[in-house]
């Protein structure tokens, strides 16, 4: 592997790791505040316990998110000094505002976590709301930076670097509204599905466990709502990509030839050598309709672009298929669940539904990761599309394999540890087997 590839792999790995915790940091506070509110309304102690458990989960995941985010802000310079040296000034504004949001989040999380006994209930709840709001704001601002990298605006590119910099224009680059909404929804969706999956798993083993049924009733509304809204936002986002980044769309769809009335390809593996897609199911005129709202619209193919600006077609196509596939499955499950909720007047708890929710638990994260891969791979070979190639931005420091393998090992270790610590948290809520000694229920099966 070349140093450029190691640098990309390290950045990609750091982002893939961080994004899980960032999403949880955005969404868990919302679930925590929701159960807090339910406790206030119903005076049901289980909701208070749930909110405390979610707060602990938030604390653990937020801490890992904060340190991995710190790693990322260093890595921007450590791996891509040319990018930061030239464009740091153009995209500094959203980063600065993200810093402010992150600051507020950390402050109020401290008050929420450690202040339950020290502040008034009103201030405590307010702190929780502030954590949720600033978490969303921080995700919003940092996504704006990615929007800029996809559709740079707000400067004039010259050989010596950007001139006529307009930071506000750069901050709201074309398509910002679609990308930020898509990312925020995906954070809520992934977290709510993961939470629902965990409680569905416990309910399959302990069908009557009241605490877990209540937990499910907090997770399911958010999961269902986001799962149904996401395809609509995703569609708007794809329409924007079709107009703004036609080569990315062509890679996402495995569209090699420019075509009028292009079909939608489901599945399949693009072959760049033969410029065909093997094994796809074609929906006639589907792509033209989805991308441009017109069955006879022309869709530009990869062949219309020079070979050296193609993204890695197979990877982008497969990642896109995975995202759309998992997204559709989640939307389907959400529709069925809402239908049964409407018919049965309570959230379904049957074995079949619980198995489905258990199986769907990881799908949100799979969709989140694959969607992020579509964006990042789809932008290659550019770090700032059309202006700076990734290869021009990389650090001159040699032997980048060393930090890559170090960070890989660290992230693997931390990932395992987080699962271990979180599992010990969840295990403590399991119904105790009859005759168990008080306090002995922590050690799960």
């Amino acid at each position, binding site marked *: 592997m070349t140093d450029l590839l190691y640098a990309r792999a390290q950045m990609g790995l750091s982002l893939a790791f961080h994004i899980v915790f960032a999403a949880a940091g955005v969404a868990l506070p919302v679930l925590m505040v929701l159960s807090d509110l339910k406790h206030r309304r119903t005076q049901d102690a289980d909701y208070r316990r749930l909110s405390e458990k979610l707060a602990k989960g938030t*604390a653990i995941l937020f*801490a890992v998110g904060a340190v991995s985010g*710190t790693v990322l802000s*260093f890595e921007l310079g450590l791996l891509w000094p040319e990018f930061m040296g030239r464009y740091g000034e153009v995209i500094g504004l959203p980063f600065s505002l*993200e810093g402010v949001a992150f600051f*507020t989040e*950390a402050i109020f999380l401290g008050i929420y*976590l450690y202040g339950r006994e020290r502040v008034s209930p009103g201030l405590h709840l307010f702190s929780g709301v502030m954590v949720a709001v600033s978490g969303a704001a921080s995700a919003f601002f940092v996504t704006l930076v990615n929007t800029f990298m996809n559709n740079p605006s707000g400067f004039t590119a010259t050989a010596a670097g950007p001139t006529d910099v307009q930071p506000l224009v750069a901050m709201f680059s074309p398509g910002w509204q679609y990308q930020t909404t898509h990312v925020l929804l995906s954070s809520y969706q992934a977290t709510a599905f993961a939470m629902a999956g965990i409680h569905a798993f416990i309910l399959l083993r302990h069908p009557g466990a009241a605490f877990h049924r209540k937990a499910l009733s907090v997770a399911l509304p958010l999961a269902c709502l986001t799962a149904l809204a996401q395809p609509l936002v995703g569609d708007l986002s794809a329409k924007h990509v079709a107009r703004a980044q036609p080569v990315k769309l062509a890679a996402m769809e495995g569209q090699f030839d420019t075509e009028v009335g292009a079909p939608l390809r489901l599945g399949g593996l693009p072959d760049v050598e033969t410029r065909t897609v093997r094994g796809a199911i074609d929906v006639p005129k589907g792509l033209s309709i989805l991308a441009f709202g017109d069955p006879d619209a022309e869709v530009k193919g990869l062949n219309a672009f020079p070979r050296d600006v193609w993204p890695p077609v197979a990877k982008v196509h497969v990642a896109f298929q995975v995202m759309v596939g998992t997204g559709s499955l989640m939307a389907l499950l959400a529709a069925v669940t809402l239908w049964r909720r409407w018919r049965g007047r309570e959230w379904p708890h049957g074995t079949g539904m619980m198995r489905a929710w258990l199986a769907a638990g990881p799908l949100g994260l799979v969709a989140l990761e694959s969607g992020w891969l579509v964006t990042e791979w789809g932008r290659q070979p550019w770090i700032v599309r059309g202006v700076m190639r990734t290869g021009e931005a990389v650090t001159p420091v040699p032997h980048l394999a060393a930090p890559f393998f170090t960070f890989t090992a660290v992230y693997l270790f931390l990932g395992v540890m987080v699962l271990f610590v979180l599992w010990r948290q969840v295990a403590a809520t399991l119904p105790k087997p009859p005759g168990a000694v008080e306090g002995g229920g922590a050690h799960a099966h």
Partner: protein
Amino acid sequence: MPTEDVLGFAVAGTFVLYALLGGADFGGGVWDLLAAGPRKAEQRALIARAIGPVWEVNHVWLIVGLVLLFSGFPRAFAALSVALHVPLTLLVLGIVFRGTAFTFRAYDTRGDAVERNWGVVFSVASVVAPLLLGMCVGAVASDAIRMQGHAVVSGFFASWLSPFALSVGVLTLGLFAFLAAVYLTHEAPTRELAEDFRRRALVTGGLLFPLALAALLLSRQGAPRVWTGLSQTPFALALHAGTAVAAVTAFALLWTRRFRAARVAAATQGGLIVLGWAVSQAPYLVYPTLTLQAAAAPPAVQRVLFVALAVGLVTVVPSLVLLFRVFRPRAPAPGAPTS
């Protein structure tokens, strides 16, 4: 005052705050490692309690400083990222292990081997990270980072492994440990614990003098710009005098057990040391190549950054005041239980 100077001052300000708050946080980890005596467990519990609600906030200052640096002075950020790639990568690993170990330990309290192992990771990372941070500062302050155009030509090791950079690393570690010990005297719930940390504060405070002197003497060879800056310009001499007064005051207040005031004096001393470094180096970001002016983003960008800074101050400062008020230490009541 030119806007880039104001922005440079803001960057220096975040580093001062990071040293005073994040630094003390690292220092807490040092004392966790060195906890000893009959109240070993209480010392560790006090450290964990003092750090718990604020550690994440304390470390945001570093992010804010970084963001200001790369938005306001992108060329300097790029150059430093290349020249200090190795120690910064190690520092980041230290920050990762310190933060996660602290959290895992705090949320997985079972008193078993797992918890003890996290404690070791936390405290070792707390020692290594300040050393590296100080070595990076030493490298920046010296003239060892050389550039041709935008390219760093001085290699990836020599600049931060010089005797001067090492001395700054040790001084930083000592300063952080001193700050933590002084802060903890006031946080301690019992007189015995306060005494434990008073002794530690006096010893590390005393050690700071020879450490600072060593760094100063080494700067003559290793960082000529700092040497002239510290020993010749009137403003730096005034800062110097201020630092000395604050140090003696902190010592006297610790000696007479006025812990609350000692905290203020120690923080002033620490802040002036960091500021002294910044002032002695100004207007250079990377001596002798990049000045504030040469590395600065265009004026339009700087103006927008000021607005972002203002937004930040308006949201963050009241929230911070609230946070520190909520977790204000409660003075030990007379005759409070000893453990």
